[in-house]
């Protein structure tokens, strides 16, 4: 099923949230202002990312991470007999030159650099191609999207986007029922923890901000990140009312009853089935 659109309408944060929650496998391509970027995912985890035209061979990645010098990079490029990143990685490890961890952490940093570079893009076409995996010769990583989404939303600067995504501050927050990653595994900063400590299904976003002496921009940004990472959810107005009235806890939120008898609905169902 296609997944196409413009970042104007559906941001990088929202895309990563979707890929995370739907546990998608495939490649997300973003084209903006002459830049073409690709991010590969497997079951909702980030494997690889690259920007077209940028050297993302392992040699360049290791040099960028300071693991090898420009001179060493030059030697590898001109003299190396190996052809793929995987072969080169093995060679460097077997020669005792670098550890596996050196290599993986450099690749991870490269992938994150690409993704964080894309976060602020406010314009540009995107499309998601299911089931495509990175080229087989690439060294891949496997990164949780929740932490990436939190970090990305910390970098948001435009007020408008936050305002659109979260128009109403008088709604309460609750923890997501089935977060994919436990909270303690996600890198949260002090302010984010302070917000989390006030989440109880009754406190509104505005009240949480007041308790913590936070301004509107700051609280929106933190809540947006927590929502996008799938860690918390908004409490529906009906449910909020019920919770506020302190009805014995538990039970799903009940919608208001339509102003009819059961028998009326049965007759309508019966009729529509026969149309």
């Amino acid at each position, binding site marked *: 099923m*296609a997944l196409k*659109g413009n970042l104007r309408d559906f941001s990088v944060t929202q895309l990563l949230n979707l890929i995370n929650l739907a546990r998608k496998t495939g490649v997300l391509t973003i084209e903006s202002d002459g830049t073409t970027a690709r991010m590969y995912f497997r079951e909702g985890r980030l494997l690889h990312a690259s920007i077209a035209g940028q050297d993302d061979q392992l040699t360049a990645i290791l040099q960028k991470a300071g693991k090898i010098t420009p001179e060493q990079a030059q030697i590898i490029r001109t003299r190396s007999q190996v052809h793929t990143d995987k072969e080169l990685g093995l060679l460097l490890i077997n020669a005792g030159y670098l550890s596996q961890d050196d290599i993986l952490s450099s690749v991870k940093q490269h992938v994150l650099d690409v993704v964080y570079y894309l976060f602020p893009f406010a314009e540009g076409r995107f499309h998601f191609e299911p089931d495509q995996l990175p080229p087989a010769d690439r060294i891949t990583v496997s990164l949780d999207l929740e932490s990436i989404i939190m970090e990305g939303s910390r970098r948001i600067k435009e007020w408008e986007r936050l305002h659109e995504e979260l128009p109403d501050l008088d709604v309460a927050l609750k923890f997501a029922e089935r977060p994919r990653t436990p909270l303690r595994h996600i890198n949260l900063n002090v302010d984010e923890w302070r917000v989390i400590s006030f989440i109880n299904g009754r406190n509104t976003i505005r009240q949480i901000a007041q308790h913590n002496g936070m301004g509107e921009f700051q609280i929106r940004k933190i809540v947006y990140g927590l929502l996008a990472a799938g860690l918390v959810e908004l409490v529906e107005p009906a449910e909020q009312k019920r919770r506020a009235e302190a009805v014995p806890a538990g039970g*799903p939120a009940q919608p208001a009853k*339509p*102003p009819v*008898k059961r028998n009326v*609905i049965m*007759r309508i169902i019966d*009729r529509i089935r026969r149309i």
Partner: protein
Amino acid sequence: MQNVKIVITGPFAAGKTEFIRSISEIDVVSTERRISDNSRVVKEETTVAMDFGRITIDQDLVLYLFGTPGQKRFDFMWEILSEGMLGFVLMVDSTKSETFREARQILDVFKKYAGVPFVVAANKQDLPDAWSPEDLRIALRINSDVKVLPCVARDKESVKHVLLELLYTILETLEEGVS
């Protein structure tokens, strides 16, 4: 004679008029106008006040389907139309992600009018660029207890399916009330 109604809402060009047209026994009493502004590139006509369809259930029960106008500048009509409804369908054009944000805002407004049951119709599933209902659920932040249904508003069977699912949901809320 008892009259009941279901409201079909959603952004501009989501397919609300088409949906009602597919199942109504009368020609949809539509207040369509030719479009005068730049929305015209999308289609020729838009609903300016409401659509109005009818299904006679039996001798003393009639179901009316009301479609809300999709364009924002007619949103003063929404509250009037939603008065006393059994439930509503939020129609979304699954191929147009530029309308998802608005769809969510419309949903928030409708939820406030009355906490009646609703379903989401992921319309235009016959088109290759349609987002799947599961992806739409996440994009629109629809809770897991709300149905997001595939829909092709031009297809009567598909429209029946959406309406029936809404009616089953309404029935459930009535049954919860009994226990």
